[in-house]
C-alpha cells in the first residue's frame, strides 16, 4: 500500500522516467520522432531526455513518418532498440505500410531470422476538442493485423512498467498513451492515473489484464482512459448496491482472454467500454470471445459502449456525445441489471 510519503508521478513523468532508465541501462536504446528533442515531446513523453542523452540519442526528425518509422526496421535489424514517437495515432495512415507490412511481419516472413525490438509510441484519445483527425484511439485496427503487441496503460504505475517491458521486448510494441491520463497540466487529466511509481525500474508482463475493482454483479471490461471512468462508475453503482468488477485489459495483443472469461463467468453480465470506434474493433472482439467461450454464463445481452462509428466531432457537446462517459456506463449497467 502506498504511504503518504510515497512518490506519485504523472503518466508523462512515468514514461519519460522509464525511457531514461532504459537508455541509461542500454546504449542501444535511442529515441526519435518529431519534437522529441528540445521540446521534450508534444505530450511530454520524452521530457528531459535530450538534455540528458544529447542529440545523438534523442533525435528530432522531419515530418516523414514513413521514413523514420521504417528506419526503425533497419536500425533494429542492425542492433539498435529504437523508441519512435508517432505524435498522434491519427497520423498512422501516412506510415501504415512500414508498420503493418514490414515492422510487424518481417519476423514471421523471415522465419524468425529478423527481430525488431522497436517501441512505436503515440498519443491517443480526445476530450479536449481536437476533432476528427487528432482524437482517435484506433487500437482495434492495429490489433487486427498480426505482429504488433498493443499496450495501453491506464495509470502511471502501469505506464512505467509496461514501457520498460516494451523496450526489453524483442518484438515491435505499439505503446498508446492517452492524452487525458498524462497529467500534463495544460490538458484535463484523470487524477486516478497519477499514482505511486517506484523509483527503481520494474516490468509489467505484456498480456496480463488487471482487475482494478472486484465485483460479482457485472463486468466492466475496458482499457485506457475509460478505466478510471469505469472505476468511477463502479463507485456510483456500489452506492446502489451493485458490485461491478472493472477489468483493465492493459494490453490488447496479447489479449488476456482468461481474465475476461473469468470475470464474466463470475458476474454473468458484461459491458465493454471502448474509446475506439464501435464496429469491427475491440468491443466486438471481447464480445465474440464471450459468445464463444462463456455463452452459457451470460444472463443478459452483452452491451458495448464505444464511439458510434462517426468521426470525432469538434464542438464540445458533440464530442461529449460520442465518447463513453461515467454516466453512460452507470446507466448501461443499471439497465442490464434492471
Amino acid at each position, binding site marked *: 500500500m502506498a504511504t503518504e510519503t510515497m512518490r506519485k508521478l504523472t503518466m508523462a513523468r512515468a514514461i519519460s522516467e522509464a525511457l531514461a532508465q532504459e537508455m541509461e541501462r542500454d546504449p542501444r536504446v535511442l529515441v526519435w520522432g518529431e519534437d522529441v528533442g528540445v521540446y521534450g515531446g508534444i505530450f511530454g513523453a520524452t521530457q528531459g531526455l535530450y538534455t540528458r542523452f544529447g542529440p545523438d540519442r534523442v533525435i528530432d526528425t522531419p515530418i516523414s513518418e514513413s521514413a523514420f518509422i521504417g528506419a526503425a526496421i533497419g536500425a533494429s535489424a542492425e542492433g539498435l532498440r529504437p523508441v519512435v514517437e508517432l505524435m498522434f495515432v491519427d497520423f498512422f495512415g501516412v506510415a501504415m505500410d512500414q508498420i503493418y507490412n514490414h515492422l510487424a511481419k518481417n519476423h514471421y516472413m523471415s522465419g524468425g531470422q529478423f527481430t525488431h525490438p522497436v517501441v512505436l509510441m503515440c498519443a491517443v484519445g480526445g476530450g479536449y476538442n481536437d476533432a476528427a483527425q487528432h482524437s482517435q484511439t484506433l487500437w482495434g485496427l492495429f490489433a487486427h493485423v498480426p505482429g504488433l503487441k498493443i499496450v495501453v496503460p491506464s495509470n502511471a504505475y502501469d505506464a512505467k512498467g509496461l514501457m520498460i517491458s516494451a523496450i526489453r521486448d524483442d518484438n515491435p510494441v505499439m505503446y498508446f498513451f492517452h492524452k487525458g491520463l498524462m497529467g500534463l497540466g495544460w490538458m484535463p487529466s484523470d487524477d486516478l492515473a497519477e499514482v505511486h511509481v517506484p523509483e527503481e525500474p520494474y516490468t509489467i508482463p505484456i498480456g496480463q489484464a488487471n482487475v482494478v475493482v472486484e465485483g460479482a454483479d457485472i463486468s466492466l471490461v475496458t482499457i485506457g482512459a475509460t478505466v478510471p471512468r469505469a472505476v468511477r462508475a463502479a463507485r456510483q453503482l456500489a452506492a446502489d448496491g451493485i458490485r461491478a468488477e472493472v477489468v483493465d485489459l492493459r494490453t490488447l495483443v496479447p489479449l488476456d482472454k482468461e481474465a475476461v472469461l473469468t470475470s464474466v463467468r463470475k458476474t454473468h453480465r458484461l459491458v465493454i467500454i471502448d474509446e475506439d470506434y464501435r464496429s469491427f474493433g475491440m468491443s466486438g472482439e471481447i464480445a465474440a470471445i464471450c459468445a464463444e467461450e462463456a455463452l452459457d454464463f451470460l444472463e443478459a445481452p452483452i452491451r458495448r459502449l464505444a464511439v458510434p462509428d462517426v468521426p470525432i466531432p469538434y464542438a464540445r457537446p*458533440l464530442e461529449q456525445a460520442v465518447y463513453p462517459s461515467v454516466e453512460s456506463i452507470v446507466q448501461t449497467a443499471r439497465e442490464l441489471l434492471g
Partner: protein
Amino acid sequence: MDTQRYLSMYRTMCLIRRYEDRLAEVYAEGKSPLFNIAAGPVPGEMHLAAGQEPVAVGVCAHLRPDDAVTAPHRPHHIAIAKGVDLKRMTAEIFGKAAGLSGGKGGHMHLFDAAAHFSCSGIVGAGFPPAVGAALAFRRSGSDRVAVAFAGEGAANQGTFHESLNLAALWKAPVVFVIEDNHYAISVPKGVSTAIAQNSDRAASYGIPGTYVAGNDVLAVDEAAREAIARARAGGGPCLLEIDTTRLYGHFQGDPEVYLKAGEKEEWRRKDPILRFERWLADHGILDAEGVARIRDEVAAEVEEAIRFAREAPDPDPRSAFVGVFAE
C-alpha cells in the same frame, strides 16, 4: 498603379491580423490561471498565422471564388484571403450550429464549398486533393486553378513528392505554395530539410520553382501572378516557396523553448503589415487616417464575427450521430 488592389490587399492583411490577435484573446478566455486547452469558448489546438499574411494575401489576390484551395492546420489567413465566410468560419471555430460545418469540423477542418476551400489537420495531406481538383478543372475545359498551401515542414512528407510528380505528368493547373516559417513546431528547417530551399525541388519534377524572400506581400503578389497565370493558361503546375514568420507560437500554449534568442523580436520588427503600410504611405496610397479607418473597419468586422459566433446556439448533441454518409 492599381491603388484599389493594394488597398484591398492591405485591408485583408489587417483583417487577418486583427482576427488572429482577437482569436488569441478569445482562445485564452477561460484558460487561466492555468492554461487548459479544453476550456473556454474555443477549445482544442489553435494555430494562428499572424505574420504570415503576405503568403495568403499575395497568392489569393490572384484567385477567383471558383478556384480551389487546400489549406493546412494553420488555415485562418488562407481562409480569409480566399473569401471564406468570416462569421460562419468563426462560429465553426466556436463549435456552433451556425458554423461552416455545424461545429463538426473546427479550426483545423474548415470547409467552405462556396469558396472551394478545404482544410486538413494532417501535415502534407492537402497536396493530392489539389492535384485532383486541378485535373477536374483541366478536363472541364475551364481556366480554373487549384492551390495547395503547406508549411516548409510538410515538404518532407511523401505526398509532396508524389503530388508534384503527378501534377507535372498531368499538366494539372495547380500551384503548390510552401510557407517557409522556418519551423515545424520546434524543428528548424535545417534539421528537417536537407537543402536550403524547397523551391529547388521543383527541378525534380521539371516544373518552375521560385523562392520568394522577405515575407513581402508585393514580392509574393508578383510571383503568384506569374505562377497562377501560367497555370490558368495551361502551362501546368509550379512551386512557390515563400519566406515568412509566425508571430505566435506553433500553437497557443507553445512554450517556444526552441527559438533562438532575439528571433521573435526580429520577426516582430519586420512585421510585414507595417512594412506594407509604410510602402503604401511612401507611394501616397494610404495615409494615417486611411490606416485608422481600415483598422477600425476590420476590427468591427472581426467583432461582428466573434459576436455572431458567441451568440450562436450550440449544436444539438444528436447531430453528432448523423451525417457520415450523404443520402
